[in-house]
Each structure stands twice: as C-alpha cells, then as structure tokens.
C-alpha cells in the first residue's frame, strides 16, 4: 500500500482542480437500488451489509461501515414511476429513526400513501466513523 499526500488535484493542463476536502466530502459513502416488489431486494449497492423490510413502504439498510454520527450525514433518495403512480421517497421519519449505521427509507405513492415501490434509490454523504 502506498500513500500519496495532496491538498489539490489538478488536471495536467491546469484547467481544473479539486481540493482534498471536496473529494472526501463529495464522495458518496453508500448508495443502493432497492426492489420492494417481494420483501426487500438490493439489486445494486455500495457499503450496505443487509436490508430489512420493516413495513409496507418502509425498509432499512445496515451499513458495512458506519457514519461518524447519527445526524452527521445527508441522504438523497429517488423513486420510480409505475403506471402513472409516481413514488415519492422520503429518507427519514421525524428525524428519529436513521442511525449512524442504518438508513431508513420510506416510499409513498401518489394514490395509496405508504406503499412498497418497484424501485427506489438512496445515497448518503458524510464522514464515516
């Protein structure tokens, strides 16, 4: 293993550069694509050890490497349209359930309220422990 110390990465022609903090903070620490059609199946993921089907329209993902704190990261989520029934995905509930090592995702359809979605996506940015 080798170590390279840097403060700024710069393109060869000098046209672009990026500071080290942008790289550390701007890189997602986890992401996933979940299929809730039958239970919960992660069809693609990074830094997720397992997923749990909590209830209709609600699942949680346990992280392989946890964040440094329960509220020290940001989650972005997205849903999928199915037969004009668009799913809205909510990343947290009352700011009480997601923890440093688990992200909870809620899916809500525009006709039925909380309900399982064909697909939903999530990611999270922050510092790992």
């Amino acid at each position, binding site marked *: 293993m080798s170590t390279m110390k840097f403060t700024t990465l710069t393109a060869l022609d000098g046209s672009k550069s990026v500071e080290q903090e942008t790289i550390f903070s701007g890189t997602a620490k986890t*992401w996933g694509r979940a299929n809730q059609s039958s239970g919960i199946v992660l069809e693609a993921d990074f830094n997720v050890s397992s997923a749990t089907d909590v209830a209709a329209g609600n699942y949680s993902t346990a992280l392989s490497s946890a964040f440094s704190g329960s509220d020290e990261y940001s989650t972005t989520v997205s849903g*999928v349209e199915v037969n004009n029934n668009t799913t809205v995905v909510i990343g947290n509930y009352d700011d009480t359930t997601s923890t440093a090592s688990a992200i909870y995702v809620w899916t809500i359809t525009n006709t039925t309220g909380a309900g399982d979605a064909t697909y939903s996506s999530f990611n999270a940015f922050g510092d790992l422990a």
Partner: protein
Amino acid sequence: MSRLNAATVARNATDTETNLMSGLAKAWFNIDADPAISEIASFNVTSYTDNAVGDYTATYTNAMSSANYTAFAAGRMGTNGTNTTVCALNNSALPFNAASMRLRQAATGSGAGGNSDEDSHCGMAMGDLA
C-alpha cells in the same frame, strides 16, 4: 497523460478510507424541458431524447458496466408552489439500461397521467463504468 491508480483516499493516517471508485457519481445532468430539451449542465451525458411530454432519456457518453447501478431524479418547486414537479425513473425503462437513463416528470396535483415538461429536471447515476 498521467494516470493515478488508487482505490481509496484518506485525510490522514488515522482517517477512514474513502472509496472513490464506488462513491463518485458517474453521470449527472440538469435539463430544461420547456418547450424542448436544452442542457443546462451535465457530466458524462452525450445526448437526450424527448420521448413524450414529461418523458426523457439521457444517454451516457461512457456507459455503465451493466444494468446493476442506481439512479436518481429530482424536479423543482414552482413559483408559489404551483407547477411543482415530481421526477422519477421511468417504468418504461425498467430493467435499467447500462447505456442510458430514462426519466419521468409529472406535475403534482394533476393526478394520473399528469406528465409535464418543466424548466428543470435533474438526474444522477452511481455505479461502475464499463
């Protein structure tokens, strides 16, 4: 041309390593779809297809390695809450396509079939490139 081979980076010797290969977004874009698609900003997108009202496809310059990746979509809040749009991956595009992302934009409150072309529509893909 130089090439840096490193899978992870860290702030210092005790910092947790950051996985650059998996954690970096591989494509993103912001388009204005009203009245026709025009690109506002993008990375790794070569073209867009206007499939129908509120239905777009963004084709990657460098494709993903397989259909096993994840994608995100976002809309916008209109003036005074009007014309707020919800964006999502398009069911017609399922299963995922390694070469492109298909999105759907619908105005809230318009009910089923309320597809709408609006001023801002964003997408992002995360996973492995081919």
